[in-house]
C-alpha cells in the first residue's frame, strides 16, 4: 500500500510539472491580458499602461515563470492579480460547494444509473431486448439534452410553475435542508449528464458478469435472482463502474462551468472561468494546479477503492 502510494506520487510529479508549465504558457498565449479585460468601454492608453505596471505584467515571461515556481516551492498560492484576494482563500471558499455537488451528483447518478444499467443488463441477459433498448434510449436521450437547455426547462417547471425549488440563493452549509433545496436543480442537471455513461458501462459489465460461472453457482445454491444480481453480479462488475464514476467525479470537481453559471453557484468552475475572463494569470494557474491535483487524487482514490473492492488486486 505504502509502496503503491509512493509509486503513484512519483508518477504524479511529472504530470503536475507538465500541467503547471502548460497552463503557464496556454493562458499567456490567449490574446489580451488582465488590463484589457479590465478596460471595458472606459479605459485606454495611459490608464492601461499604468495598470499593466501595477499588475506586474511588464516583467519578462521567464521571470514570471521563475517567480511562479518560487511561490510554488514556498507553497504559496499567492493573491489574485486583479483583485488581490488570497487564492487559497478563494479556492477554499469555492471547493466545498463544488465538492458537495460533485459528490452528490455522482452518488445520485450512480444509484440511478447502476439501477438502470443493471436492469437493462438483467433484461438483456434474459433476452428481453425491448426493456433493454428502451432503457438505453432513455439514457441516451437524457444524455443528449444540452445542459443549458435542460436547466432552463427545469427552472421553469420546478421554480416558476410548481414553486418547489429555488433557482438561486445563498449557499449555506449551516442549513443542510435549505442547501439541498438550493442545489437540487443543478444536481438534477448534472446527474442527467452523468447517468448515460455510467448506465452504459454498468450494463456492459453486469451483462458480462452475469455470464460468469459463479453467478450460476449462486443460483444453483438457491440464492434468489435479485440477491444474485445485486450482491454477486454488481460487486464483481464494480471495477469499471468505479473507474468511470471516478473519472466523472474528477471531471465534476473541475466545476461545471455552464451549470454553475446558470444556477449562480460560486464553485471552482465559476472561479476558473472568472479568472480566464479576467486573464488573472495567477488565479488561473493555481486553480488549475489545484484542480489537477484533485483530479489525480480522485483517480488515486478510485484506484485504492477498487483495490479494496477486489481482493485479487494487490499493491
Amino acid at each position: 500500500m505504502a509502496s503503491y502510494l509512493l509509486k503513484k506520487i512519483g508518477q504524479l510529479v511529472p504530470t503536475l510539472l507538465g500541467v503547471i508549465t502548460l497552463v503557464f504558457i496556454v493562458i499567456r498565449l490567449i490574446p489580451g491580458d488582465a488590463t484589457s479585460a479590465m478596460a471595458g468601454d472606459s479605459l485606454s492608453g495611459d490608464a492601461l499602461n499604468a495598470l499593466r505596471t501595477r499588475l506586474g505584467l511588464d516583467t519578462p515571461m521567464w521571470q514570471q515563470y521563475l517567480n511562479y515556481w518560487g511561490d510554488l516551492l514556498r507553497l504559496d498560492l499567492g493573491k489574485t492579480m486583479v483583485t488581490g484576494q488570497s487564492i487559497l482563500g478563494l479556492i477554499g471558499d469555492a471547493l466545498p460547494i463544488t465538492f458537495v455537488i460533485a459528490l452528490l451528483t455522482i452518488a445520485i447518478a450512480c444509484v440511478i444509473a447502476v439501477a438502470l444499467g443493471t436492469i437493462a443488463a438483467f433484461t438483456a441477459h434474459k433476452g428481453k431486448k425491448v426493456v433493454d433498448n428502451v432503457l438505453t434510449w432513455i439514457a441516451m436521450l437524457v444524455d443528449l439534452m444540452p445542459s443549458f437547455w435542460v436547466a432552463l426547462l427545469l427552472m421553469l417547471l420546478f421554480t416558476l410553475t410548481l414553486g418547489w425549488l429555488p433557482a438561486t440563493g445563498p449557499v449555506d452549509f449551516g442549513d443542510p435542508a435549505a442547501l439541498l433545496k438550493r442545489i437540487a436543480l443543478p444536481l438534477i442537471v448534472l446527474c442527467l449528464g452523468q447517468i448515460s455513461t455510467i448506465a452504459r458501462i454498468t450494463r456492459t459489465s453486469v451483462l458480462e458478469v452475469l455470464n460468469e460461472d459463479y453467478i450460476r453457482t449462486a443460483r444453483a445454491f438457491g440464492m434468489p435472482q435479485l440477491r444474485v444480481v445485486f450482491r454477486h453480479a454488481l460487486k464483481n462488475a464494480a471495477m469499471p463502474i468505479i473507474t468511470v464514476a471516478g473519472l466523472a467525479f474528477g471531471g465534476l470537481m473541475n466545476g461545471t462551468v455552464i451549470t454553475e453559471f446558470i444556477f449562480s453557484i460560486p464553485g471552482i468552475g465559476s472561479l476558473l472561468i472568472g479568472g480566464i475572463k479576467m486573464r488573472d494569470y495567477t488565479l488561473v494557474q493555481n486553480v488549475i494546479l489545484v484542480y489537477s491535483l484533485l483530479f489525480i487524487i480522485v483517480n488515486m482514490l478510485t484506484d485504492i477503492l477498487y483495490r479494496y473492492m477486489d481482493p485479487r488486486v494487490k499493491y
Partner: protein
Amino acid sequence: MDNSMEGTLRQSASVTLKLPRFRSLLRLLRGRQSLIGLAILLPLVAVALLAPLLPLADPLQTNVKAGMHAPSAEYWFGTDKIGRDQLSRTISGLQTSLIVGFTVALITLAGGLIVGTISGFFGGRVDRLIMAISDIFLSFPSLLLAIALVAIFGAGILPVIAAIAVADLPRAIRLQRSLVLGIKSRTFIDAARMVSAPTRWLMFRHIVPNTLAPMLVSASIVAASAILTEASLSFLGLGITPPEPSLGNIIKDGQPYLREGWWISTLPGLMIFVIAISLHLLSDGIREALDPRSKR
C-alpha cells in the same frame, strides 16, 4: 493440368482478396440494427450534403416580418426571431454538426489507434511518456484549451473541432492502449512471433483489427457527444460563428425563446438525438459485422 491449376489459383487468390471485405459489408447490411441505423443516418447525411440543391429557403435570409412562426405547412420547422427558416437552418446546421462530429470522431479514432497502439505495444518508457502526456491533458480543464484554441486560431469550425478533439483524444488513447494490452497477451500473438513476424505486421494484422470494433463504438459515442459539446461551446460563445448555423448554436439561439418558440431549439435538439441513436445502432451493427463470431 498444371497450367490451368495455376490459373485457377491466381483467380481464386484475387477473388479471395476481396471476398472477406465484401462479406463483412454484406453482414453489415444483413444486421437489422445497422440497417435501421443506416436508414436514419444516410438520409440525414444526404439531406445535409444535398442541401444546396434542395428547394429550401436561404438559411441566412432574414425576414423580420415573419419572425417566430410556429411549425406549419409553410415553415416545417417554424422560423426564428428574425424570421429565418428553421428547416433550412437545421439542415444547414446538420451539415456543420455532422462535419464536426465525424471529424472529431475520425481524429480521435485515428489518433487513438496510432498512439494507443504504440503506447500499449511497446510499453516501457514510450508508454510512460505517452501516458504522462495524456494525463496532463486529461487533468487540464478542456474549457481553457477551448478558449485558448479559439483565441489563438479565431472562432470557427477548425478550432472547435480541435478543441473537442484534444479533450477526447487522451481517452481514446487510453482505451486503445488497454485493448492492446489485452490482445498482446493472446496466444495468436505468440503464434505470429514464433515466425518472427515484424512489429508492423503484429500491429496492423493482429492488434488493430481486433481493437477496431470497440474503438469504432467509442468513436460513434464521441461523434454524438462532439455535436453536443459544440452546443455547449456555443453557449459560452466559443462555438461555430453565427450566422453560420450548427445544431449547437441553433439550440443556443433558441434557448431564450423556449417559452415563445419551443420549436427553435427543440427540433434541432431532437435531430442530435436522432443522429446519436442512428450512430449507436450503426456502431453496434459494425461491431457485429466486424466480429466473425457473431454469425455462424
